[in-house]
């Protein structure tokens, strides 16, 4: 069986950053597996700008950002295999992979980095009643048709959900001469970045309706209209508030879900909170030697953060294969729990070991909080605190922590005050 030190599943921004960092920290036997015919992942279709502000202090487009990552992989001659589909990963870290040139192969890895990214929540999962005509499409799929293939998925669009891809698509649709009727959002706040609402909707006079949803899709062959209604505090439609909006397309941008089918196959413990793997502060999963980073671990807002998180994982994997990092053992760790207002917390465990780097906890607020503070409690007493003017679910929060403050704690809790 073919052997490799570090096997990386996914050649998007997460996989490439992890590979580069692992290489820099001494790991030389690395293989990146990428399903499509190019590296870069979803960045290739994100032709808008705004990428790289944190990591490169420059404003890049998605393909430009991807290009910088790909250049590093090529310069360092890190091997990657395109058109390669991973069928299975076992807890023993044997991957079954497939590509048209070599057929089916098995690879034994010392460490595996899961970097598969995420997928969009489709119409079916939202259970929107109505007919099933053409013209109901998720934002990312529309983005692919428009940016990679050059076709318009519609001419008159209603957008459901204010996720970032939907907002970006709203702006791009306008530039393509497509009429964007409005954006409806179930929650009383947006799940997208504030800067996207300002630059993609407000600048183009596209209305955004909060606490509203699509309650019916109409049309036989192609969408002819959708019915929008306001919802109450329990997110139930309020009778009498229905409005029918003529359109030929319903664009859905209502959430991203980490693609964890392979993680589950490998026996990795999952959590419903992030829909990703449970990890310790090295982002090592419950299966020793399997790490996770990027959107497969938890959905990020910015690719810059994906890259930085994945670099840390690359370093850790390099340490793991050289024997400097031990197998994960959650039972010996300090559990980190979600307190008031906190969801999607990562990591869920902190190792009681000495580390050179500070500890970073990431999470999403469960609602909108003004003049609030993020507080980390070790067995009830506050060990870190960070004030913020506004916290919203659309923007991931992070707080750094001095390890020494928690080494003896029984439990760590993060809450919003």
């Amino acid at each position, binding site marked *: 069986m073919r052997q490799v030190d570090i096997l990386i599943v996914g050649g998007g921004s997460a996989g490439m950053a992890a590979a580069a960092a692992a290489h820099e920290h001494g790991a030389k036997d690395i293989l990146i597996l990428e*399903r499509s015919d190019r590296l870069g992942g979803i960045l290739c279709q994100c032709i808008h700008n705004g990428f790289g502000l944190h990591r490169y202090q420059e404003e890049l487009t998605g393909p430009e950002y991807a290009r910088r990552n790909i250049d590093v992989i090529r310069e360092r001659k890190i091997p990657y295999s395109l*058109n390669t*589909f991973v*069928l299975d990963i076992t807890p023993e870290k044997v991957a*079954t992979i*497939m*590509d*048209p*040139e070599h*057929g*089916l192969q098995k690879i034994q890895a010392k460490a595996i980095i899961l970097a598969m990214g995420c*997928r*969009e929540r*489709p*119409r*079916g*999962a939202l*259970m929107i*009643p*109505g*007919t*099933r*005509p*053409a013209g109901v499409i*998720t934002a*990312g*799929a529309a983005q*692919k*048709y*428009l940016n*990679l*293939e*050059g*076709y*318009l*998925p*519609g*001419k008159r669009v209603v957008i459901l959900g204010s996720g970032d891809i939907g907002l970006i698509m709203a702006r791009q649709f306008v*530039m*393509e*001469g497509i009429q964007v009727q409005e954006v409806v959002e179930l929650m009383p706040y947006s799940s997208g970045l504030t800067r996207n609402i300002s630059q993609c909707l407000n600048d183009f006079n596209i209305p955004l309706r909060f606490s509203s949803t699509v*309650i*019916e*899709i*109409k049309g036989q*062959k*192609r969408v002819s209209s959708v019915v929008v209604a306001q919802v109450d505090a329990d997110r139930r*439609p309020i009778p009498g508030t229905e409005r029918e909006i003529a359109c*030929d*397309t319903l664009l859905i941008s209502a959430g991203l879900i980490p693609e964890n*089918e392979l993680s*589950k196959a490998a026996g990795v413990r999952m959590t419903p909170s992030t829909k990703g793997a449970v990890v310790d502060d090295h982002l090592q999963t419950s299966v020793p030697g399997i790490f996770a980073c990027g959107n497969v671990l938890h959905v990020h807002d910015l690719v810059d953060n994906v890259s930085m998180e994945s670099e840390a994982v690359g370093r850790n994997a390099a340490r793991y294969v050289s024997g400097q990092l031990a197998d994960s053992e959650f039972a010996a760790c300090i559990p980190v729990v979600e307190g008031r207002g906190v969801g999607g917390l990562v990591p869920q465990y902190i190792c009681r070991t000495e580390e050179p780097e500070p500890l970073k906890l990431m999470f999403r607020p469960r609602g909108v909080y003004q003049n609030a503070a993020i507080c980390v409690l070790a067995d009830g007493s506050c060990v870190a605190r960070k004030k913020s003017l506004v916290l919203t679910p659309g923007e991931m929060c992070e707080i750094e922590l001095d390890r020494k403050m928690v080494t003896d704690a029984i439990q760590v809790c993060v809450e919003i005050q």
Partner: protein
Amino acid sequence: MWDVVIVGAGVCGAATARALSRYQLRIAVLEKGSDVCAGASRGNSAMVHGGFDPEPGTLKAKYNVLGNRMFDRLCEELQVPFQRSGTLILATSEADMKSVEELHQRGEQNGVSTVVMDREALLQRWPTMGEGAVGGLFCPSGGIVCPYTLVIAMCENAARNGVQFYLDTEVTNISPLEDGWRLTSQDGSTFDTKLVINCAGTHADRLNNLVSTEKFRILPRFGAHLIMDREYIKWVDTTITQTPTKLPTGGHTKGMGIMPSADGTVILGCDSVDYTDPDDVATTSRSINAIVDYFKTFWKYLPISAVYPNFPVEGVINAYGGLRPHPDRDDYIIGEAPGAPGFLNAAGIESPGLTAGPAIGEHMAELVVEKLHPQKKENYLPGREICKPFREMDEQERRAAIRENPDYAKIVCRCEQVTEAEIRDAIRRPVGARSVNAVKMRTRAGMGRCQGGFCQSRVVELLCEELGLTPLEVTQAGKDSYILLGESCSHRFEEVAP
């Protein structure tokens, strides 16, 4: 002149076509949908019923039992996924146990063996059966099949043996000829035939009433289903339903249930609402809520509740609706229509119609043989040539398949692991796929948890390559259901560039 024209390519029409394709006959199937299996045979619970439930002595009981017995061979010949995974009617009260007893008796009369189980027996078979499940009726001959795969397979097989299929062809008029009938379709084309077989589902009454002295009415009875991710199949090994309920508008429904699907997902449903529009399969919030609410309560009784204590709504990946063609007389209408010699009905084939369909098809073929005395074909082929789904192959089969055809190593639909080889095959086969949905029905590409978000554009490309279309001509489900509505400005600039 055709010998036989079959109207409707659902389970009855397809089964009749296949049964008749053994004979030297000129046969046409007219289907108003853009693909075969467009009506009731598509949007149902996918159950192969044991046959203990219909009223003894009815045609429903007869063909249910006969049909059930045909499934092993039928599905083997046609390579259609089918499992006798059994059905359990779950009792959660003493009153339910009474109906369980009654159903057991009825089963005896219909010649279908069932087992009455008490709680202990339930626990023996399903150790995690929830608290409050007091007993039930288990029918081992009940099963699950993929309904559209079955119907498509029967159509493909019939086509392979010479039957002609006309899609997008709705019969709008029927007039008598001296020695048969003239059928006219919506675009004015005519089909002259000796015999007509009416398998028109929810439209069967319209056709019958054009020619017969005995009119009937088909009441479209709507039901919705939810589909859950493959993740849950491990804990759903058999169909579990509530006890049947009488309906105020006649007949009864076998009620809500949870079913493993033959393709590895889990189906929940269905409710029952009377409609007037014979084509309205739109799901409604009323139906979806009815199912969700039902399972929020019923869930605790199910064995899966030991793993997922509450109904995991987030596991739902899609919803679909279907119409049962409920006849006004509460039994199937089968045979020559009074006052219309040579016009044969297979009408009102509501549940358990998917199970009964193959047996009804055989019966319709017998009626035709009695009238036309055709010769048997010597070169009749009972099976179909089909690429085995990659998903169902073991490792050795996969290696062999890739060696033979490298397209097998190209996964197009990642959620359902459908390869390029299977998609190209689905387009090239008899009665081949012509739209994105037709590819989906034949291969499951786009049917998984992402619902085509990732793979649809590749399916569009493959349809273009195989059929010589441009992406703007590709439809979701035939006629005018275009997926893309224009070219982007970058596309337009490219054209003017030197």
